[in-house]
């Protein structure tokens, strides 16, 4: 079921009402049933897959805990099983193609095609990562979850089921034990987060996508300036799409009295790629840190080993996003930027005068600017459908392609596109306004996604007029702008 569908707009209020009307002891089974309905609405067969994986990991958890002699082997087996299942669904075609191409390159016949179609189950990357986290924690000494029902709800909890945030069971399970009361604050914030998330997706992301799709469909036609505009748009599309999804997930969970991790924290105000990665898809970046980077040795084995670990973590993180070379390149590019930044940090710390400059706010502004552009450059690999397109775009955005069209490289020619709306000519203003909004939000003390409740001082009374007007405007804009068929969330494919 899609968050931006009418089905979900009916499903959520029904679950909400049933949940709060149900006695506490029946709430977990109710949520479990609702979560499976949510999942099986798409393809009922895959409900069995998630159930099977859940049962497997439930028993593996106990096995890992109880193993004394061969604990590491049992743990390794558990991790391997999860990785193999994820690998089969997500990477079978990729591996097949790579092996086939390699065979053809050395004059051998290509591998025969698969006789059955492998459909990637929605959200498998997310719930497999939650299982791996669970096994790691048990291996490190945590206690396994005794109740199968509670354990089954952990990966399947519908607000976070398809595209995260990736939860930690030690945060989630205790929330099932604490009887919650519905408060007005939870209700208001939950609904506001859902509305704001939908706004981000439907109004912002889906419209930025129009520019991105058209420019990447024809990178040969457009100028370097156009492609930079497209990259800015893609940066914002990705942010609004996924943070919008997360807001809806957070809002839905909050309506049921649950807190799920904050996944985004104004990433484009970051001063380095490492920082951006700490602010972007936080639940994934912390997962990669805790269950990949640190187990590989983290930064304890000297600089060279640290660089290796960073690169490996980021490349694997890239491939997690998709089974294709360009995703690996995306991760690798980010890793490379992180390594360069780490080297730069080591360097300037040896020069006190340089360190003083780095501490100034002018340097910070420059660093934010540079980081944003480095991030955009890495996105060339993420957005391009294949490596050929990626190179075409990369050459243009780095001004290495002199054979541009009749216009100069600096001319943003797409602004004159006579399309069905005025997105194109207004693009520079929209991009500037979007960035300015981030700066404003950064000044706010409120929870990300929740607007401050300004009060109007009228006849000596403080009237909270702003918030209802803001929410009403949000609703109206959503009704007007929401297309009948909004494209699905980008992160669903991961």
């Amino acid at each position, binding site marked *: 079921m899609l968050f931006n569908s009418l089905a979900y707009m009916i499903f959520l209020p029904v679950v909400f009402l049933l949940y709060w009307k149900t006695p506490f002891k029946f709430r977990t089974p109710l949520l479990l049933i609702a979560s499976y309905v949510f999942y099986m609405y798409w393809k009922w067969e895959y409900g069995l897959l998630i159930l099977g994986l859940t049962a497997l990991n439930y028993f593996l958890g106990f096995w890992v805990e109880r193993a004394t002699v061969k604990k590491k082997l049992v743990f390794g087996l558990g991790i391997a099983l999860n990785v193999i299942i994820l690998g089969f669904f997500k990477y079978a075609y990729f591996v097949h193609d790579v092996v086939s191409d390699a065979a053809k390159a050395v004059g051998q016949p290509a591998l025969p095609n698969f006789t059955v179609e492998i459909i990637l189950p929605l959200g498998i990357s997310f719930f497999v990562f939650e299982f791996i986290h669970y096994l790691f924690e048990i291996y490190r000494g945590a206690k396994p979850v005794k109740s199968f029902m509670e354990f089954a709800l952990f990966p399947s909890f519908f607000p976070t089921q398809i595209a995260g945030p990736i939860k930690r069971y030690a945060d989630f399970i205790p929330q099932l034990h604490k009887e919650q009361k519905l*408060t*007005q*604050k939870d209700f208001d914030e939950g609904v*506001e987060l859902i509305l704001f998330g939908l706004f981000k997706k439907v109004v912002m992301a889906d419209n930025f996508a129009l520019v991105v799709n058209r420019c990447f469909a*024809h990178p040969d*036609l457009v100028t370097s300036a156009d492609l930079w505009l497209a990259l800015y748009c893609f940066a914002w599309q990705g942010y609004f799409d996924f943070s919008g999804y997360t807001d809806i997930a957070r809002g839905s969970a909050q309506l049921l009295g649950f807190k799920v991790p904050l996944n985004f924290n104004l990433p484009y105000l970051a001063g380095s790629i490492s920082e951006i990665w700490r602010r972007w898809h936080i639940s994934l970046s912390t997962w990669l840190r805790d269950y990949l980077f640190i187990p590989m040795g983290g930064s304890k084995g000297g600089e060279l080993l640290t660089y290796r670990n960073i690169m490996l973590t980021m490349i694997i993180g890239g491939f997690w996003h998709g089974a294709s070379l360009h995703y690996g390149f995306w991760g690798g590019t980010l890793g490379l930027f992180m390594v360069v930044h780490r080297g730069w940090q080591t360097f300037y710390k040896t020069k006190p005068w340089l360190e003083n400059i780095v501490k100034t706010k002018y340097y910070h502004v420059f660093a934010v600017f540079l980081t944003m552009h480095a991030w955009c450059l890495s996105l060339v690999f993420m957005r391009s459908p294949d490596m050929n397109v990626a190179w075409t775009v990369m050459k243009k955005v780095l001004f290495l392609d002199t054979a541009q069209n009749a216009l100069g490289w600096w001319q943003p020619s797409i*602004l004159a596109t006579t399309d069905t*709306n005025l997105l194109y000519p207004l693009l520079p203003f929209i991009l500037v306004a979007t960035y300015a909004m981030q700066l404003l939000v950064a000044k706010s003390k409120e929870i990300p996604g929740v607007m401050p409740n300004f009060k109007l001082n009228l006849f000596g009374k403080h009237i909270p007029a702003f918030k209802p007007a803001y929410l009403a405007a949000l*609703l109206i804009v959503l*009704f007007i702008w929401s297309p009948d068929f909004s494209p699905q969330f980008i992160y669903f494919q991961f």
Partner: protein
Amino acid sequence: MKNAFSLTNFLKQSPVAQAFILVAIINASLLYFNPLQKLDPQAIVSNRTWAWWAVKDFRENPSDVIMMGSSFIMNPTWQEEAVYRKQSVDLVVDHRTTYLEDAIKSRALVPQNLRCFNFGLPGAMVSDQAMIVETMCQGPQKPKMAIFCVAPRDLMDCRFFNAGGSKHFRYLTNFTENKQAKDLAFMDVPGKFADWFSNALFFKNKSNEIQTLRANALKSVMQPYLATLPPSPLNQNSEEDRRSVFKRDEIEKGAWLAHPNTPYWYVNSSPDCRMRYKHLNSQVFENQKIWLDKALKTCKERGVKAVVVNVPSSPEARECMFPGIYERHVEAVTTITKANDIPFYNLDPGWKHEQKDYTDWGHMGPQGGSKMLNAIASIVAGNQELVTALNSPSNNNSANRKVAESEGKQDAL
């Protein structure tokens, strides 16, 4: 410490509740006063779907014959047209089928300026065909003949739920106030609810009009700035640029070009076929039967000669079908056409099926298209009533074309 939820306090204190009440008041006022004038659906630029383009072409180029159906008709007719004309044909803007025109002219004595229009739309059901008849077969562009091409899926596709859920149908409803048609549009509860929801919300119901008016207003304000911009390369009509880049239902010129020398081959897509013919889908079938009956009656009332043709179902399609679908289909179409005294031709008996005629389980390529169009031309030529209809001077098409051309120019402005 969290406060317990209380409904009384909730309405007084919750900004969310207040916002919803505010929206409800604004919505009720707008529904009551309805300040937006009705726009010509063709002016709603945010709606450039298949149906939008086909209607635009049809209004600008009134035709004597319209041939309706799903992509089973649309694709082979268009692909064969490119082969026949020996040039690329852009289906988005060019729906004329000169192949059918010449095939009819070579078999019967009909006017030399006969024009045939390919009104096939992807995924179209019989209800969409009925809506085309309801909205297009009147006024200056009324055709002399309507050919209803139906395959079993057009009346019962298991991936289809409500006539009103079709994007073609939704667009075409903008041209009519026919309440009966709207009442038939939704059968199931989610469909009825979605329809009610959409109609009850002014902002949802009028979203296209609001977006169009807003865009027009902004455009006029920004004209001085827009005039300074260099020409955009993205305005070029290139094929691959257009296909996947718009919102899902929108298409643009150049997105669907058929080329004369494109090789076509058969792709096995039987899972899709099985999905569509998974079960009898009686609810949809019964509803579509009513639409067929209604469409034929409308043709008779308006003096448009109708003919129903059952397009061939490939052996692969017949294998995929749930038992009884095909027989039920033929029987129902026979009964309805007989009751309305409309000729019905089933192309299946005696049809020589060859896999090279098809590109998948249901769609023919240009070669299959040629066979099918020849069969349809023979049907028309062999039926004296149809030939007489084509020879009737009633619609004064040349005058109509001039009117439509001037309308088209106004649209373009």
